[in-house]
């Protein structure tokens, strides 16, 4: 494996145009090796189109893709055996058993090892909890079982990178938790995981890094602490003398104060000195009922970035 690049996935100005409009526009992603990278955005924002390009299924209109150090699509046949993927839902031959489906998919790669094929399929099935349904026809699987079989397919071979498009779709809460645990476990084995989702809570629970996309454009990317730091910190005050409190705030360099009832709210630097402000207020004989800093949440930041219609689940 080429080791020059610190990125498991890197794209430069990746663009995909459908019928004159950009589904993906100048996307420059950098997914660090070993990270669990959340790819967040509303449905239809271009996440799946991006994933299709990463895997060489769709051709980019412009830009470059490097996957595990290999150029895509030129070197896809070298890169893809090291990449497991779930793209826009699982898909199978309904008249074959779950196990036969895995054997079929594994046989498509002519470099995959025939001698270990069956044992690899069985251990992948075990890993996703489908051992008991291995001989059942995939057409009779429930949506959640199909999703698990899709994950088993992604785990058929030792992988360096997993690209999982909405992996918990269609799963019940129990299944969702199992899949998230599985992702954490895989990440602890050193596999880079690129996880697309429209669920913020999913990203917050399992990811170390994230990128936010909306309407085909990348809005932000980085580690979760970095992203959180992008949001605004606010000081919140409840006082008995609002005009005088405003004077104190102005002297402390805090402007744009929003007033609602007895509560004042204002954006401040992340390292804002709350005790000093408290002391100043008390010095001016302002009665302080409450004073606190509101730390930025990812949710606030993402809503700020993507605006209305963003599907945030809390």
């Amino acid at each position, binding site marked *: 494996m080429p080791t020059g690049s610190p990125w498991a996935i890197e794209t430069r100005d990746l663009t995909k145009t459908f019928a004159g409009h950009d589904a993906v526009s100048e996307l420059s992603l950098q997914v660090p090796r070993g990270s669990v990278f959340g790819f967040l955005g509303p449905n239809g924002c271009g996440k799946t189109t991006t994933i299709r390009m990463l895997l*060489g*299924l769709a051709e980019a209109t412009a830009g470059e893709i490097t996957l595990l150090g290999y150029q895509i699509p030129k070197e896809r046949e070298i890169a893809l055996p090291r990449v497991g993927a779930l793209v826009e839902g699982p*898909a*199978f031959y309904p008249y074959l058993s779950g196990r*036969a489906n895995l054997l*079929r*998919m594994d046989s498509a790669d*002519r470099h995959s090892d*025939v001698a270990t094929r069956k044992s690899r399929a069985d251990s992948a099935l075990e890993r996703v909890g489908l051992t008991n349904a291995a001989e059942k026809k995939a057409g009779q699987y429930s949506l959640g079982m199909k999703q698990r079989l899709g994950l088993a397919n992604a785990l058929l071979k030792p992988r360096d990178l997993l690209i999982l498009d909405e992996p918990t779709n269609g799963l019940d809460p129990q299944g969702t938790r199992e899949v998230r645990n599985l992702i954490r476990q895989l990440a602890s084995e050193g596999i880079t995981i690129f996880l697309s989702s429209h669920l913020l809570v999913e990203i917050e629970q399992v990811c170390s890094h994230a990128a936010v996309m909306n309407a085909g454009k990348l809005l932000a990317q980085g580690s979760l602490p970095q992203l959180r730091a992008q949001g605004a910190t606010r000081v919140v005050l409840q006082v008995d003398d609002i005009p005088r409190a405003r004077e104190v705030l102005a002297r402390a360099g805090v402007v744009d104060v929003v007033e609602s009832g007895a509560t004042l709210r204002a954006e401040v630097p992340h390292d804002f000195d709350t005790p000093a402000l408290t002391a100043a207020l008390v010095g001016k004989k302002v009665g302080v009922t409450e004073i606190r800093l509101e730390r930025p949440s990812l949710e606030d930041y993402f809503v700020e970035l993507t605006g209305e219609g963003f599907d945030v689940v809390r």
Partner: protein
Amino acid sequence: MLFAKAVSLSLMLTELQIMFTRRRTWAMLAAIAMIPIVLALAVALSSERLAPGEGPPFLDRVTQNGLFTGFTAMLLAMPLFLPLTISVVSGDTIAGEAGQGTLRYLLIAPVSRFRLLVVKYLGTLAFTIAGAFTLMIAGALIGAILFPVGPVTLLSGDVISVGEAFWRMALVASYTTVSMTGMLAIGLFISTLTTIPVGAMTGVLITSGVSQILDNLPQFEAIHDWLFTHYWLDFADILRQPIELSSMGSNVLLQLGYVVVFGSLAYGRLASKDILS
């Protein structure tokens, strides 16, 4: 070896497994087997004796020698029924995988688009062989049950032994398979154009219909030799002594031409296509 490299044995085996575990495949083979059976029963149960030359070719011979049942059934199945089953499997090749979403998973396994097309094509060829031999074998069996079996008098008047007649049956089934290779390539190409298998199947069937109609219109005589259905019924030449080879040779070349042209078109289409299903 280029061939082994292009095919990938494991994938080919799963392709055959998929083809022959599907109930649809067995239903179609059963329907193909019914053609000689219905034909033989109809002839056996009807009291009227056919005058030589009445009804489909060879039909009058079936009662004299049961081994003719397969040949007669093939003449009946060639224009419509065999192409119908073949359009189902060849229209389904890529469109079927695309429609159910497995195409994207095969391609990221990864398999090259070229290799996938070769494997898919060989799968449909396997079905065609199965179909042609099913028809001839079912014909020989039902003919042997219902009618006398003995040395076969050929169209040229020569008489061949029963054993030799079986070889001729295998030749007819093989020739039929070769005759279908062009249509299979057309089907493969049409199948790359859509993600709706039924649409592709209908398209393939229409091409065979149009080709046969053009072949029957004298106004299109200039292109008759270039139509992929033109030599379909020429397997009757196998029932002469010696076997008449000229039109069969032309057919092989013609089918090869269709395979090259439509195989290339299928590759050109699939290689440049965004897989969005």
